[in-house]
């Protein structure tokens, strides 16, 4: 009963991770497309994606604007890849044999990518912070500390999972 409930939860999480992955890719693609349009037409910077207005930065300096958009797209792509890795973990896990080295390796990769997100978000926040001295009405959108915390938590879980692999292998070789 409990096992079937866990399977149902993991299946739901897998579907949600796929939706997140596709959603983030669409968002990244939309921002990139709007940016390309805004290169020729500065008006497009007023609404890059769902009221994301970077026209102030676009008018201030094109290269700062390019930098900000690049980092936004990079953050979204790393997040999308992380969501994709989550779908891989959820599709690889089998309730009869949940602890495998492959899952551990994917979980470690997830923690590294969240750590990577933290670095890009820090750069993004720093640039927004620097620009906000010259431009009014600009604020950093992210709380960068959360990403490193999350990366740490996932890394700890992956190490616990690694121990689980050892225990499972011992259990399988117990007669």
């Amino acid at each position, binding site marked *: 009963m409990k096992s079937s409930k866990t399977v149902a939860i993991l299946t739901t999480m897998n579907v949600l991770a796929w939706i997140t992955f596709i959603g983030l890719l669409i968002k990244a693609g939309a921002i990139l497309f709007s940016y390309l349009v805004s290169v020729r037409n500065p008006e497009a910077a007023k609404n890059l994606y769902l009221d994301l207005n970077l026209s102030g930065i676009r008018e201030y300096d094109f290269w700062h604007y390019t930098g900000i958009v690049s980092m936004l797209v990079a953050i979204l792509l790393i997040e999308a890849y992380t969501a994709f890795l989550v779908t891989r973990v959820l599709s690889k896990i089998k309730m009869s044999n949940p602890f495998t080295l492959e899952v551990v390796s994917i979980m470690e990769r997830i923690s590294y990518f969240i750590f990577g997100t933290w670095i890009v978000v820090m750069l993004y926040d720093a640039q927004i912070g620097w620009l906000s001295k010259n431009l009014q009405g600009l604020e950093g959108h992210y709380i960068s500390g959360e990403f490193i915390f999350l990366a740490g938590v996932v890394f700890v879980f992956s190490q616990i999972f690694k121990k689980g692999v050892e225990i499972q*292998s*011992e259990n399988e*070789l*117990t*007669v």
Partner: protein
Amino acid sequence: MAIIVNLDVMMAKRKMSLNELSDKVDLTLANLSILKTGKAKAIRFSTLEAICKVLDCQPGDILEFKNE
């Protein structure tokens, strides 16, 4: 590993095949094979007891310690 499993020796002494032992101790052939080839990492007391009962021997006849 420093622990040597002498199950095959005892089986030969009792002239018992792996299939026969598997039936009598109620253990799968795969698990018995893991034990016989020394791949096992642990053995349950219940398994050891069943094997000793069927082969009419002591645990020391099946398991041996060799300092490597």
